[in-house]
Structure formats: C-alpha cells, structure tokens
C-alpha cells in the first residue's frame, strides 16, 4: 500500500490532482455553452448579464438606447420618480428593474425577444425537458458571469476547480435533458383543408449554415409577431412539426378581430328573442370558422392519413406538444432537402359540434398571408 508521507509522493499526488482538474475543466469548456446563441443571433446585453439572443440590429438598438437613456428621462423627475420618461417613451423592462426609456415599439420588441429567448439558445435551459425555461433575463443572470465582449465563458484555464465542477454538473444535466423525446405527431398527418410549401429562403434567410433551432426560432418569431404565442413542437419522421393554437377566423381567412382564441359560442339572446337566430342556432347554421396550422419540417415526402381529425383533437395538439425544440434536435443542421409544409386545418364549429372543412375555400398561401405569417417571414432580415 502506497503511503503519502514522503514529500515526493505528496508532490506526485498534487500534480496528478491538478492534471485531473485541468482535464475536467477543459472537457467542460469544450461543451456547447448553455446560453450561446444560435447562428444569426447575438446577446442583447441591455445590462451586463443580459444573455437574451437577438438579431445584431436589435443589439445595436439596445446599445444606442442605453447611451441615450439619460437624455430620455424627465430632468426634474415625475410621477415615477427620477426614472420618469419623457413623453413618447416608456420603460424598456428587459428585466423587471430595467428603467431605460425607449419607444413603445422597442419595448414591444424587447418583450417579444424575452418571450422567444429559449428558442434562440444553442442549448435552451429547459428545451430538453419539455418545460418552458425561465426566459426572463433576470433568471438568466443567475448563471455564472460571462465575458460580455466575447460572448463566451472565461477560458477553462482561468476557471477555479469549483466552477469546473459546476460546469461538469451542468453538462451532465444537459445530457440528461437531451434524452427528452418530442411527442409524435400523427403520421401520416390527418387529412388537411389545404397546404402550402414554404420557400426555403423565407426560413433560412441569410444564414450560411442554418440549424433546426434557428429555423424554428425564425418561424416562432414570425408567429409571435402575428399573435401566435402558444406554439407546440412534435416529432415527425426525420424532422419536427410546429403547431399553432386554434384560432377563430373571419370569412376572408384573416384572424377574427374578436374572440380570436375562444372557441366558446355565445347563447342566443332571450330578450329580445330572435326566432331567426334561434332556428339558425338550432340547426347549426350559425357556425364560425376556426383554423389550426401545422408546419412540418422534414425531407421525407408524405401523404395523408385516412381519418379526418376531430376538432377537439386538433384543439388539444397545442396543449400536448412540447414547448420548445429539444437541444439535441435544435443543433442539427437544417438540411438542404428539408421542406417546410404548412398544413392548414380549417374547422366549422357550431353549437351542434364541429367538422373539418375539406377542401378549404382558400389556398394555403391565402391562409398564411391572411394570418400575416408569410408577410412577416418576407420582411424579417
């Protein structure tokens, strides 16, 4: 049995320990950073630890807003104290205590970026376990400090053994999370009302090496800009699918101005009573039209299943899907042969029940343009 009493043995043991710690630290450093942005995005840095990923243009805007912060405050203060903004400006609220005065449009953009933060990280903190992550910058700032200038963690050699251990633990956690599997979308997909194959250029834009994550983030941003804040992810053969929540639509396929997200039907009024309205309701002639859009991203061609999906099942798609794309899937490159197809499921719902509208009175392009999704994708940089 070796004993460590001699100075030589002690020195050898210390050297061995240092080598092991160094190896562990370098291994941790080689793993993808949890908050590194997907391609095309950079940290916003509205404040030193702000790691919400935004486009470079937004980052520049944020820096400019920070510089102009003092000039946009009321010099004498106001109703909200020293942080009161001049007319036309509002607090940015990149985190709850962010009081930089910006235009309402910038504030809205900031809120949207916060909401979508989890979709733009290479390894979203909770993407792999199906939970929506803490997407507030305040929560993100609880992580170890990053070097803002580089957008990277400090070099592994500069990390203390404690930090290296933390990194190892984080890596193990990430590996555990990466085992999460997306729920499977019914395949082949149930018969749809209409469909549209989306142009690849709309999804990858100027990214030289797009990933599933960057494409999904771009799509999610386009959806969020048009009010689709609840989007779910499913697995499909060789790819993934994104599902929007059911929405009420107008006769021109545009989202309904009122009760867009409600599937409730208002009762016929008793006072004053209208026999015409009553009979229409009795025989289901006063139904409204609803829509669910499923975006499939797969290189595999597909047909449709035989059985139409009941409206109740389609309504539940968004609830049963995953809230984000798992990191393992997000980091995969978006293949050259991957095709995005929008499947539009249009339903007529009345007090008597619901039915799938087949075929739709509109084509896929009309649906997506009326929803604003195509327009947003075309305008996105």
């Amino acid at each position: 049995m070796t004993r460590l009493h001699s100075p030589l043995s002690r020195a050898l043991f210390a050297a061995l320990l240092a080598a092991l710690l160094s190896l562990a630290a370098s291994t941790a450093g080689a793993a993808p950073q949890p908050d590194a942005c997907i391609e095309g995005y950079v940290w916003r840095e509205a404040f030193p630890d702000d790691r919400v990923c935004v486009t470079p243009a937004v980052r520049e805007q944020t820096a400019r807003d920070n510089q102009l912060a003092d000039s946009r405050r009321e010099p004498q203060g106001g109703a909200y104290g020293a942080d009161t903004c001049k007319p036309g400006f509002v607090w940015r609220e990149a985190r709850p205590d962010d009081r930089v005065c910006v235009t309402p449009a910038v504030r809205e953009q900031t809120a949207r970026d916060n909401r979508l933060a989890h979709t733009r990280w290479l390894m979203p903190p909770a993407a792999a376990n199906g939970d929506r992550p803490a997407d507030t910058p305040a929560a993100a700032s609880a992580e170890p400090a990053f070097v803002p200038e580089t957008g990277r963690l400090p070099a592994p050699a500069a990390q203390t053994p404690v930090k290296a251990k933390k990194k190892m633990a984080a890596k193990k956690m990430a590996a555990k999370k990466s085992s999460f599997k997306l729920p499977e979308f019914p395949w082949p997909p149930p018969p749809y009302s209409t469909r549209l194959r989306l142009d690849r250029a709309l999804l990858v834009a100027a990214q030289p090496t797009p990933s599933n994550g960057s494409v999904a983030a771009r799509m999610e941003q386009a959806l969020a800009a048009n009010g689709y804040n609840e989007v779910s992810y499913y697995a499909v053969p060789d790819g993934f699918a994104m599902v929007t929540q059911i929405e009420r639509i107008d006769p021109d396929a545009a989202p309904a101005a009122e009760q867009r997200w409600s599937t409730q039907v208002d009762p016929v009024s008793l006072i004053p009573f209208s026999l015409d309205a009553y009979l229409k309701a009795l025989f289901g002639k006063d139904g409204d039209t609803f829509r669910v859009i499923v975006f499939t991203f797969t290189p595999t061609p597909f047909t449709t299943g035989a059985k139409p999906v009941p409206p109740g099942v389609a309504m539940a798609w968004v609830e049963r899907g995953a809230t984000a794309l798992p990191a393992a899937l997000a980091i995969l490159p978006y293949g050259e042969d991957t095709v995005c197809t929008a499947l539009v499921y249009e339903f007529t719902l009345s007090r008597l029940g619901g039915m799938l509208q087949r075929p739709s009175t509109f084509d896929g392009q009309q649906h997506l343009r009326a929803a604003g999704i195509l327009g947003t994708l075309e305008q996105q940089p």
Partner: protein
Amino acid sequence: MTLTMHTARKRLALLWFVGAGVCFIVLLLISFFSRTANLTDLWDWFLPATVPNLSLILGVLVYTHRQQILPEMHVDIFLFRLAFGLSLLYLLLLLLPLLSFPLTGKTLPELLDISRLWLAAVQGLATGVMGAFFVRQDEK
C-alpha cells in the same frame, strides 16, 4: 273518477308517441340541415332513451288487439296520474336539451352528456310505474 285499463293504456301510449315523436322530428331536421352535428352521437343518445318504453307500449297494445282482449278493469286513478306525470316529466326533460341548447352557452353534445344524469333517474321511475299498466295487469 274511474278509468278503464284500456283507456289508461291508450292515453299513456299517446303521450309517449307524441313526446318521442317531437324529439324524433327535431333530430331528423338537425340530421338533414346540420353539417357540423355528430349524428351518431345524437341518435345514440335518443334511441336508448325512448325505444325500450315505446316497444313495450306498442307490444302490449298489439298483443291485446290481436287477442281481442279489452281489459275493462278499473285502474287506480292515482297510479295513472303518477305514470302520466312521470312520463310527461321524462319526455319534457328529453326535449329540454334539444330545444334549449341554443339559449345556453353549451354545445348540444355537452348538454346531451349532462342530460344523461337526470334522464337516467327519471327514466327508471317512469318505466317502473309504466310497468303497472303494460306488464303487471296482463300477467294477471
């Protein structure tokens, strides 16, 4: 006031056929004109609620007619009123969700599901007392 068994049976049969007939016509119109209704669910709800009692009534009436039996015995008027009242209540409760769903915030399938609760209770009572007129007397 007295009532013969024959008359009591005819009145109850009339009530049941008229009540079930109104429901039947409403469902038929819905089946013709609605594009969104799940017809299978609709008829699955209606048929078990009426067909057993209607079959019993019709079977006894046809049997007594073919056997040339005219039961002239007098029936307890209280029993008849009870049977008539419960049958009327049951048929009204059957018709209620069909005609009132446009006035509520619920869809017809939702209301039909809920109606099974009270229909089950009243149907048991109505069928029990109907047995006094259409089963027990003939066994004697």
